[in-house]
């Protein structure tokens, strides 16, 4: 095993390293000498719950997923933890929910290995909890993925479905071009069965399920959060002041402590009546979604082979791209440079009454987002034609890019658009077959 060789090497070098270390200790004093213990950072929405609710959520999360040092392998979640589950659970229905290959190792070894690989290679950007807020994250644009919504952009699955293990495998192995996500092709030696890659993928899936669980439970408890108490006070203050201004009598706004006490009382009732069901339903929802992602029916398979990539097909693709039918140009621009008029607009912020403060499109994490510049020949979700086909068919999850497949475009049409888009990096910026400065007219002609 190469791990053993590595240890031996370290053994022989240990004296030198220890000397260096003690020197380092003297020099740096406290600094980095003692690593802080890794922990799963809580979501802001958890931290903002009233104390009773927060402690309840944290307890649920600890019981269901543990800590970075004491992992909990919850059989409900479709994760291949590795090894055989304890005998007592042999009849457990969901433990068998994911048909894992026969594996006689100690239970949980794959999760353990995944954690180790993750902590060495991934946490710098993606953070201990997979929140995309590792120490390096603040310097990066685009931001590292925050797994905690359970959503990933580049998938081979239908619009409502999650990412598959194969998709994650490809991303880990080959990276995401145009971003900071590098290729981890060297994580495994050829012929070793991608043990490390597979383990880290299970760990990432597990982190995603963990994060989504926390998010969804927080959403259920939004009435018991300091944020909603703040909201209530602000509202009461607002109506009090406007009543006073118009000379009416009104009750002064309630105090924070009174509202917190009331929320705590309400939470007690909720905890007794509804909490367990909410957690249970949430866990089932998450598990079902992740199980479905890896089912064959979730995969996008083009119904027709790629339309021959020739001038006629590209022209059909171009007319579609410029048409009101697809409106590709509104985001990706008339020349495909990703600078369409939508990038100049102010867009509403979902779930609030406001708009984003800066122009342009945003993803569900609230990060500003540029539509892909199609003239660079760089495709984040993969450069195989079928990858581009799938981007158009199912849209790009978490972004404004909608799904076109099955409704707006037939599979043949999508291939035409793929052929056109993939020809763009090699063509002059003004499409020669159309009117130079009036692409809208081209679309109108196409319809007639």
């Amino acid at each position: 095993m190469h791990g053993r060789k590595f240890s031996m090497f370290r053994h022989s070098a240990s004296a030198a390293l220890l000397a260096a270390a003690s020197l380092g200790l003297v020099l740096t004093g406290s600094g980095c000498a003692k690593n802080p213990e890794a922990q799963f950072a809580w979501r802001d929405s958890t931290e903002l719950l009233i104390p009773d609710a927060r402690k309840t959520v944290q307890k649920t999360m600890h019981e269901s997923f543990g800590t970075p040092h004491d992992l909990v392998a919850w059989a409900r979640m479709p994760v291949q933890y590795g090894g055989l589950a304890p005998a007592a659970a042999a009849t457990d229905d969901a433990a068998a929910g994911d048909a894992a290959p026969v594996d006689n190792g100690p239970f949980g070894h794959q999760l353990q290995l995944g954690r180790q690989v993750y902590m060495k290679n991934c946490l710098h950007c993606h953070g201990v909890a997979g929140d995309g807020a590792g120490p390096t994250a603040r310097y990066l644009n685009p931001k590292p993925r925050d797994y905690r919504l359970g959503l990933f952009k580049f998938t081979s699955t239908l619009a409502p479905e999650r990412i598959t293990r194969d998709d994650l495998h490809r991303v880990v192995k080959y990276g995401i071009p145009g971003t900071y996500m590098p290729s981890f092709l060297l994580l495994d030696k050829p012929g070793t069965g991608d043990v490390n890659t597979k383990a880290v993928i299970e760990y990432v899936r597990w982190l995603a399920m963990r994060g989504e669980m926390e998010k969804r439970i927080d959403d259920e408890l939004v009435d018991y959060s300091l944020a909603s108490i703040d909201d209530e006070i602000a509202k009461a203050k607002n109506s009090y002041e406007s009543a006073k201004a118009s000379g009416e009598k009104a009750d002064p706004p309630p105090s924070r402590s009174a509202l917190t006490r009331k929320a705590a009382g309400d939470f007690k009732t909720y905890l007794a009546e509804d909490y367990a069901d909410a957690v249970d339903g949430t866990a089932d929802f998450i598990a079902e979604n992740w199980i479905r992602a890896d089912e064959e029916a979730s995969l996008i398979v083009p119904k027709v082979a790629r339309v021959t990539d020739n001038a006629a097909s590209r022209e059909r693709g171009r007319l579609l791209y410029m048409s009101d039918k697809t409106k590709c140009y509104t985001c990706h621009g008339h020349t495909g440079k990703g600078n369409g008029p939508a990038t100049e607009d102010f867009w509403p912020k979902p779930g609030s009454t406001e708009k984003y403060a800066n122009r342009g499109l945003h993803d569900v994490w609230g990060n500003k987002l540029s539509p892909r510049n199609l003239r660079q020949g760089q495709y984040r979700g993969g450069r195989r034609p079928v990858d581009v086909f799938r981007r158009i068919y199912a849209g790009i999850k978490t972004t404004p890019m909608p799904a076109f497949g099955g409704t707006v475009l037939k599979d043949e049409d999508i291939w035409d658009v793929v052929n056109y888009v993939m020809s763009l990096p090699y063509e002059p910026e003004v499409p020669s077959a159309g009117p130079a400065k009036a692409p809208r007219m081209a679309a109108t002609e196409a319809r007639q």
Partner: protein
Amino acid sequence: MMRSLRTAAWAIVPAAALAMCGCGGGADATTTVTYRPSRSDAAVATDAVPGAAAAASTEVAVAGGVGSIKGRVLIQGNVPPLPPLYAKGAAPKDPTICGLEAAPNESIVVNDGGLANVFIYLPKPPKGYASSPVTEPAIFDQKYCVFKPHALVVRTGQPLSILNDDPALHNTHTYPSRNTGFNQGIQANDRTGVKLVYTKPEAKPLQVGCDVHNWMTAYHLPVDHPFAVVSGPDGSFEIKDLPAGKHDFKVWHEKALELEKAFSITVKAGETVEIDIPVAASKLAGFQAAPSKIIQLSSTR
């Protein structure tokens, strides 16, 4: 064997960490994995009960009789009418399609003192109430780049047909919190419709937008019972066939968000309760409290 090597390596780990890169995340720390069964036995046992209990108590609900609620959402104070989002012919995008009509600003619609588009609903079905599924599709249309209707209640499991009456692409993009998000292009002039099904009830209405036309917004509320309505153009609403007893309604409007957490109404069997819901005009100012600040002191994020 492995373990002894591990122990040997232990002495080096802090040193290596120091010499190489300083603060790591404890990649080499020993970890334990604890097995947790899918469901505890207690949970399985209680799972079996609700079905039977629900069936039994539906009869109780029927035995208690049903009544209705009727009323209006009334604005207290003055709300000036909002100008349209754009005038006829002046759509910021697709003027030849969207601009055929002015786009009304439906965020606050007041007619005759009544507030429209207010959701009045029970957050969960009355105790023991078992509702039958709805199979007839609900219609969600788009015309002149405006969603129709602006506020819609839909049942879980009920198919929602998304139509398009414009000769241009729309995409319907939902932002639910319990359901799976939906972002699908809707073909120009699509009169057959694209099907959307909400599988879970939501705690509050969710926003629906179109990424092609940024002014287009609407609200959907998926619920798992029939006791949810949207107030009409003049603020009137009616909820029928409620089991007799006290019910706590949530009242929600897109500008004020949650207007009432628990608006209590007592229903008597065979009677119609007439009740108006007052809303102070100042609540529609469309404000939200500044989010509370969190200071993260952890360096392990």
